[in-house]
């Protein structure tokens, strides 16, 4: 967090309302997102309790597992949720554009969950489903492993900065608004919405108090409130179990509809609030460079889609050494680019970086527009130098490559020197690109005296790191022969994973 964002939080505290942190929404919002609100049972490992799913506010479907400890019911749930999600994903696998190896689907699915816990719940569900076998003693419907693999793909992709195929709504809200509460409390959708848009007739204080009262605002999941578990849910599940043991069909139907009603009462407020949050986010303009990241999402979606069509294997349980290193490399690169893109698009984010000394803006006080140098290949090229006077606490060193949101695209520069000048700083930069091919720089491609200009570091192009092939991994980095998970083709005990507490 920078000083500027911290100050925004203080301002929010003082004014008792959320204040904007960015000018734009840096995440793409699909015109047809699929909202999933997953609920899990407390204490069980990834035992789904219920989910509400749908791609429009009025079209939510509630799926409930009456006895989450029962394996068959769990997978019946996974299959019906899976069918909805796979149908949704399939609806984007059409209208492919472009030819040859570069053709792509023009749009991607987008799944929105209320909070980070929702992503964790989907990750667990994906892990639970993707190795299931569709034949043999513990067979599950075909859609279950397919669903598991897609969920795992989406969860992995969500780790990458700037992507928008699977997002927590609290995350997008907190990227755009600063509240007068901590990051921990911002994870609570109701608390966060209390600051941004309190319900009509309520003050922020009242809305915050309501948000933390599970009887007014049930938790957005994935865990339900312990009071609800003990007071309502446990007796209801017990009635269901008793009816089932006795084989009393009427009591069973009654118990089941009771359970649905109880869970609906817990999940519907979150469902409504999630759609309110989405509507609110639509009112924030989308940042220009979001489209560039969206195209990458399209490429990733197309390529995974093709991989699935070719009958690809489920993702392995643990990355190999090379896979992990590659993945880390991608994640780092995506983060650097996302940060730079945001600062380029958004004056708020740029100001944020400026307050931390990672970017600067000021007025050109001196320019040498006709300066040229001779390159190693004996070519004379323009290398104009300009000096900028800035009040920002610049912490960039000489030789840092720069980009500028205030110059025509393609403009590139490098820092020559950073010198203090009273309470300001003089930064001299050499323009290295974006001046056209002529001996003389194109008009408007070099800053002129008295011009206001901002610069930020260029994340630049980095070659993809080279790693040895999988058959040439040194012994220090390869899994030992007996270790499980080394062979993705044979996930151990895939079908027969034992399931406890069956009744």
């Amino acid at each position, binding site marked *: 967090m920078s000083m500027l964002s911290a100050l925004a939080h203080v301002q929010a505290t003082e004014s008792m309302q959320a204040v*904007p942190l960015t000018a734009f929404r840096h995440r793409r919002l699909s015109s047809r997102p699929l909202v999933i609100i997953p609920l899990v049972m407390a204490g069980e*490992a990834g035992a789904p309790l219920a989910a509400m799913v749908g791609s429009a506010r009025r079209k939510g479907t509630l799926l409930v597992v009456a006895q989450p400890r029962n394996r068959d019911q769990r997978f019946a749930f996974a299959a019906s949720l899976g069918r909805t999600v796979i149908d949704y994903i399939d609806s984007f696998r059409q209208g492919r554009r472009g030819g040859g190896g570069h053709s792509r689907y023009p749009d991607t699915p987008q799944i929105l969950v209320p909070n980070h816990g929702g992503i964790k719940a989907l990750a667990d569900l994906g*892990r639970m489903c993707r190795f299931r076998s569709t034949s043999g003693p513990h067979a599950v419907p075909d859609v279950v492993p397919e669903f598991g693999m897609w969920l795992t793909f989406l969860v992995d992709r969500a780790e990458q900065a700037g992507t928008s195929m699977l997002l927590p709504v609290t995350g997008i809200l907190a990227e755009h608004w600063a509240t*007068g509460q901590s990051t921990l409390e911002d994870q609570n959708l109701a608390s966060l919405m209390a600051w941004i848009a309190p319900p009509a007739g309520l003050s922020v204080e009242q809305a915050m108090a309501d948000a933390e009262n599970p009887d007014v605002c049930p938790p957005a999941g994935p865990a339900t409130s*312990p009071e609800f578990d003990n007071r309502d849910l446990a007796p209801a599940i017990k009635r269901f179990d008793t009816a089932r043991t006795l084989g009393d069909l009427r009591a069973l139907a009654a118990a089941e509809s009771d359970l649905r009603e109880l869970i609906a009462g817990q999940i519907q407020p979150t469902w409504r609030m999630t759609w309110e949050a989405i509507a609110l986010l639509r009112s924030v303009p989308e940042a220009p460079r979001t489209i560039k990241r969206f195209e990458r999402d399209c490429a990733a979606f197309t390529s995974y889609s093709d991989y699935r069509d070719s009958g690809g294997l489920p993702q392995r349980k643990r990355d190999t050494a090379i896979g992990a290193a590659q993945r880390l490399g991608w994640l780092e690169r995506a983060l650097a680019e996302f940060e730079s893109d945001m600062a380029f698009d958004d004056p708020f984010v740029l*100001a944020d970086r400026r*307050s931390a000394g990672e970017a600067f803006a000021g007025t050109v006080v001196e320019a040498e527009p006709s300066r040229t140098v001779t390159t190693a290949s004996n070519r004379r090229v323009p290398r104009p130098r300009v000096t900028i006077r800035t009040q920002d606490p610049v912490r960039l060193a000489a030789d840092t490559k720069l980009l500028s949101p205030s110059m025509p695209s393609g403009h590139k520069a490098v820092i020559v020197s950073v010198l203090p000048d009273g309470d300001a700083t003089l930064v001299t930069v050499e323009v290295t690109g974006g001046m056209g091919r002529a001996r003389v720089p194109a008009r408007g491609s070099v800053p002129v005296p008295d011009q206001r200009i901002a610069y930020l570091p260029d994340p630049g192009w980095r070659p993809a790191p080279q790693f040895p092939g999988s058959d040439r991994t040194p012994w220090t980095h390869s899994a030992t022969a007996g270790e499980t*998970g080394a062979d993705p083709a044979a996930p151990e005990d895939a079908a027969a994973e034992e399931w*406890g*507490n069956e009744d």
Partner: protein
Amino acid sequence: MKAPVDDRLDALRGSAKRLDYSARSLAALENNPRCTLRALLDASGSDKAAIAAHAGHPSPFGQSAFALARGNVFETMVKDNGCAELLRLLRETLQLTLPEVGYEDLNDIGGDGRAEVRHDRTKQVLLQAARGNGGGTLFDHPMLCLPVGGHKAFLEPDLVAFRIGGRFHVVEIKSFPIIDGQADPTQVRAATTQACAYIIALRNLLARVGIDKQAVSDTIVLVAPKDFTNRPTAAFVDARKQVAALSRQLARIERIGDLVDLLPEGLTFDLGLDKDKRARRPAEELAEALDQVPATYRPDCLNHCEMAFYCRSRARADSSLDVLGPAVREQFGGIDTTTMVLGLAQGRLTPTQDQVEMAAALRHAARLRAELNVLGGAE
């Protein structure tokens, strides 16, 4: 020397029954060691949940019956048939060579479940084992005792195993899953801290008869469900750092007298319980008493301390930066309140010598935000 401090602590608690430290409240020590209010409430054995509720900020900590049931079922399953499943794990998963194995149930001694009796028996068998002439290798629910600030706290580990490499090992059975070899780090940490209290208590017991602390390993054995199954798996967790941290905090409780000395005379958190256990003391009076003791609120407290909601409302009333959490706080080193931050940012307050740099940075940041608002802002 000790007596007056104890008297003062008793006076703080008032008429309520003394609550002893449990492994959980000891673990809380590690989460926010610098909080005076928590230190005093714990040391005096006050009922934090009741006090917070009476002061108008009931704590939201309930445990789901599902989680409890799952925990119990899992523990029973691991310990069934003289810990057969556990032994399989120790041998197969952790590849230990355990020759002959005994099992000693210390849950109650001949039907007597009193802590003192169980502790005496525990002491007897553990010391025998340490001296090499006890048959037991696995001790189920031994009752350990740790003096904390001059008071006995009885602690009950799930299991203590002996002779894994000739040393005692604390075995912690938890019902959160280890999925593909990875478990939730916060849960592992909480489990480890809890186990640290057992390690320290066990070492204490042995030290009294001159057995070196090396006899108790500072590696704990964590047993938890594997993946999504009910089958257990086990892992070693290195607890050296947390043992050291908790030992340090325990030593600090011994010096609770220093904290007590700073309190005004006659301060008490007594709820004035009547014979129906209803609190009769006016809530404002209680809040006033609480307000006299400094608290170190952090948003993280909301996850584990019963007093957190009270402390948060107090921090809000004081416009403390603590409410916004460490990420915001660390940007404004040396400044405590939002009022001060804005005062310096808008140039309404004159910075002290130490604040000059911070004030300059703040004014710069405020200027940037003002420029943005002129530009039209986000909305």
